[in-house]
C-alpha cells in the first residue's frame, strides 16, 4: 500500500493527493465555512444559528500535520419574527468573515438574513485569586475587619474560550443578506442583500451608508438581484458584486457615493447553442472571489467556474466546466429545485488552483497552469483517517472503468456548496450537509514527504479529550 501511495503521488493524472484528517458532526447543516487570515482558525456556521470554531494544533513530531480541534462553540443568531410582515427570520448563518486584527482575541462577523453580529472570541487561562474581601463562603466581609492590603495573584486555570457579541448591526436590510466582506482598511465592511449594498464602520452600529441600490421604482420592472459582493483584497476603494443575470460589476467608491454606475462590467456573451428555458438560471452567478493577488476574479455559475482578468471585461480568461453533463438535465434539476443551488468557489493560497463543489459529495479542483482537473469525494465511506482520496469520474455513457459513476446515479441531495482553502497551505475544508471534512495535501509547504499511513485508524475525533458537543 505504501507503494501504491507513492505511485499515486507521482501519478501525472492527479496533482493533489489529499488525505482526510477530521470530520465532525454538528447537529445541523453547515451553511458557511471560513478560515481566518493565518489559517490557524476555521469557523463554521450552521442552519441552527450556531458558530463552531476549530483551532489547528501546533505541528508535533508525531503528527506531521497539525490537526484541527474544536475551539469554541456559541449560538450566534436566534430565530426571530418580523411582526410587521408576518415573516419568520431564519437563524441560519449565511456568512462568516474574520477580522484581520492582531490581538490576543479574535473577531469575526457572522450574519443571518437580516442582522450582522461582531463576535469577540477570547481566551482566559488565568484567574485572579487571593481577594480578601470575601470570606470562605463567599460572603462579603465587614470592611471594618479588613486590616491588611492583599493583592490578588493570577493563577493558571483551565483554558476557557469565551465568545461575546460586541456589536449588533441590525435593521439595515429590507431584503435577505447574502454577503459580508471586510475592507482591507480593517475599519469598514460591506453587507449586501438582494438589492442593496451597505457600508458600515465596524464601530458604529446605528448607521450605514448605502453604496449600491438596484431597486427599481416599480418592483414589477425588477430584472436582476445582487447575488454576492466582495471587497478587493488590497484596494480599499474597489468592490465587486455579481448578479442574477450573470454579470459581475467592479465599483470604485471614489467615483461617487452611490456606486450604481459600475467602473467595469464583466460579462460573457451567452452561447446561443445552449439557449433553453433555464439559460438565465444557469448563468446566475452564485459566488465571486478575488484572487489573493487582487489581479483576478473567480465567478461560479451553475455549470462553470470562470477566471476573469480585471483588465478584460468582455470575456473570462479561463472557463472550467464543473459538471457539464448536467446541461441536458436542467429541466429535472429545475423541478427538484437543485438548479437554484448556490455553489461557492475558492482559490488556493498562490492562486494557482481553483476549487468548487458539486453533487454526490464531489468537489472539483482545477490547476490553472497545467489545466489538469480532479474530482474528489467527501463522504464517510471513503474517508478513512489518513486515507488518500481517490479521484472520481462521472461518465455520461458507458462506464469505462469500474470506479466510474454514471450521471444517472448521482445523488443530488448530497451537495457540496461550501468549501474553503487555507490561506497559505494546502489544507481544505469541505462542508457536506452536516459533516465537515478537512483534508490536507501530503506535500506540506516545508517540503517534508513523510510516508502517510494508509491503515485506517480510529478517527481522531472520536478520541479527543474534549469531543465536540453541540
Amino acid at each position, binding site marked *: 500500500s505504501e507503494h501504491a501511495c507513492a505511485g499515486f503521488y507521482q501519478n501525472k493524472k492527479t496533482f493533489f493527493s489529499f488525505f482526510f484528517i477530521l470530520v465532525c458532526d454538528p447537529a445541523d447543516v453547515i451553511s458557511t465555512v471560513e478560515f481566518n487570515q493565518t489559517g490557524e482558525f476555521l469557523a463554521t456556521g450552521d442552519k441552527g444559528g450556531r458558530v463552531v470554531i476549530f483551532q489547528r494544533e501546533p505541528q508535533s513530531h508525531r503528527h506531521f500535520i497539525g490537526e484541527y480541534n474544536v475551539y469554541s462553540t456559541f449560538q450566534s443568531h436566534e430565530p426571530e419574527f418580523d411582526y410587521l410582515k408576518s415573516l419568520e*427570520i431564519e437563524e441560519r448563518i449565511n456568512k462568516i468573515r474574520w477580522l484581520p486584527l492582531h490581538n490576543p482575541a479574535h473577531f469575526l462577523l457572522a450574519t443571518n438574513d437580516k442582522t450582522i453580529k461582531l463576535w469577540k472570541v477570547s481566551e482566559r487561562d488565568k484567574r485572579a485569586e487571593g481577594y480578601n474581601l470575601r470570606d470562605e463562603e463567599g460572603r462579603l466581609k465587614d470592611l471594618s475587619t479588613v486590616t491588611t492590603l492583599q493583592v490578588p495573584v493570577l493563577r493558571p486555570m483551565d483554558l476557557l474560550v469565551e465568545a461575546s457579541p460586541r456589536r449588533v448591526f441590525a435593521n439595515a436590510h429590507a431584503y435577505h443578506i447574502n454577503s459580508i466582506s471586510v475592507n482591507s482598511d480593517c475599519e469598514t465592511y460591506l453587507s449586501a442583500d438582494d*438589492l442593496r449594498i451597505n457600508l458600515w464602520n465596524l464601530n458604529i452600529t446605528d448607521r450605514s451608508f448605502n453604496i449600491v441600490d438596484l431597486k427599481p421604482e416599480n*418592483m*414589477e420592472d425588477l430584472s436582476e438581484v445582487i447575488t454576492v459582493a466582495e471587497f478587493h483584497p488590497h484596494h480599499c476603494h474597489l468592490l465587486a458584486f455579481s448578479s442574477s443575470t450573470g454579470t459581475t460589476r467592479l465599483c470604485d467608491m471614489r467615483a461617487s457615493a452611490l456606486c450604481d454606475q459600475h467602473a467595469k462590467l464583466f460579462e460573457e456573451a451567452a452561447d446561443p447553442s445552449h*439557449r433553453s428555458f*433555464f*439559460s*438565465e438560471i444557469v448563468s446566475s452567478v452564485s459566488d465571486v472571489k478575488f484572487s489573493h493577488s487582487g489581479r483576478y476574479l473567480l465567478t461560479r455559475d451553475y455549470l462553470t467556474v470562470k477566471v476573469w482578468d480585471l483588465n478584460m471585461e468582455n470575456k473570462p480568461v479561463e472557463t472550467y466546466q464543473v459538471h457539464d453533463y448536467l446541461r441536458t438535465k436542467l429541466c429535472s434539476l429545475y423541478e427538484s429545485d437543485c438548479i*437554484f443551488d448556490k455553489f461557492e468557489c475558492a482559490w488556493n493560497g498562490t492562486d494557482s488552483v481553483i476549487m468548487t463543489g458539486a453533487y454526490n459529495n464531489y468537489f472539483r479542483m482545477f490547476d490553472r497552469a497545467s489545466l489538469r482537473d480532479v474530482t474528489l469525494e467527501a463522504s464517510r465511506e471513503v474517508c478513512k483517517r489518513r486515507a488518500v482520496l481517490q479521484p472520481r469520474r462521472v461518465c455520461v455513457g458507458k462506464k469505462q472503468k469500474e470506479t466510474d459513476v454514471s450521471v444517472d446515479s448521482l445523488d443530488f441531495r448530497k451537495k457540496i456548496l461550501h468549501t474553503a482553502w487555507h490561506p497559505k497551505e494546502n489544507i481544505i475544508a469541505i462542508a457536506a450537509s452536516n459533516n465537515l471534512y478537512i483534508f490536507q495535501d501530503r506535500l506540506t509547504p516545508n517540503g517534508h514527504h513523510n510516508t502517510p499511513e494508509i491503515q485506517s485508524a480510529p478517527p481522531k475525533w472520536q478520541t479527543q479529550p474534549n469531543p465536540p458537543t453541540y
Partner: protein
Amino acid sequence: MEYKVEAHRIMSISLGKIYNSRVQRGGIKLHKNLLVSLVLRSARQVYLSDYYSGACLNAQSEREGNEWDITDSEREKFPPSATECDRVESTEEPQPNEQPEKEREYRENDDEVKSDQVDCTSTLQEQNQNSSLDSVAKVSSETPPESITEPKESPSDSAVAERDSTPEANGESHQPPKPYVCSNRKRSAEESESGDSPQKRTKVASSNAKEDEEAEEMDTSNVSNLITIFGSSFSGLLSKESAKPEAEAEDSGQICCDQMLKNLNPWSTAIVAF
C-alpha cells in the same frame, strides 16, 4: 408539439414554485422567485406563440380580416412555391392537396414564416431571406417533420399566427428557440369547437375580472385553476390514440389557460406576494 407540452409543464411547475414560496420559512426568496418568473415568462412565450399559430383563430378571423389583403399580394409573388409545398405536404399526408385555398395557405404560411424568420432568432432560421424559392423550399422542408400532420387547415390561422407572434419576438431581447411551424394539428378541432370557444372565454374572463381587485386571491385561484386545467388537459395529451380527442382536451385546456395567461402577470403576483 412536444415543446408545447414541455412549455405547459414548465409553466405549471413554475407557478407551483411561486405559490409554495409564500409559505416557506424565512419569507419569499426574491432571487429564486425572479428566476422562476423568468422561466415562466419564457415558457409562456413559447406556449402562446404556438397557440396563436394554431388554435382559436377562427374567432379572431373577423378582426384580422384585413390581413387577407396583404397576404393576397404576397401570394402573387410566389406562385411556384405552392407546388413545392404541395409536394412536401403530399409526402406527409396520403391525400394530395387539391383545393386552391390550401395552396394559398401554404404560400402564406411560408411567407409569414419567412418574415418572422427575419425578425426573431429561431433555431430553424436560415440566413438568406431574399431568395424566395430557396428559402420557401427550405422552410417547407424544415417544418413538415414537426407540424404538418393534418391535411386540413383553416385559412385565417396561418396568416394571423405569424403576425401575432412577430411583435412578441421583436419585443424580447432573447428568445427561447421557437420553431416557426405550420402547426395545423389543432385547427380541425378548433373549427369544430369554434362555437364553444367564445363561451368558454367569457366565462373565464368574468371570473378573472371579479378577482382582479384582490391580488392575493387572484394568485391562488389562478394557480389552482391552472393546475386543475393542466391536470385534465395533460391526460388528454398523453394518450395519442386519436388526434381528435387529444386536440379537444388540449383545446379546452388551452382556451381556459390562455385567458388566464393573458391576465396573469407572473412577476406581479410574485412581487405583490413579496
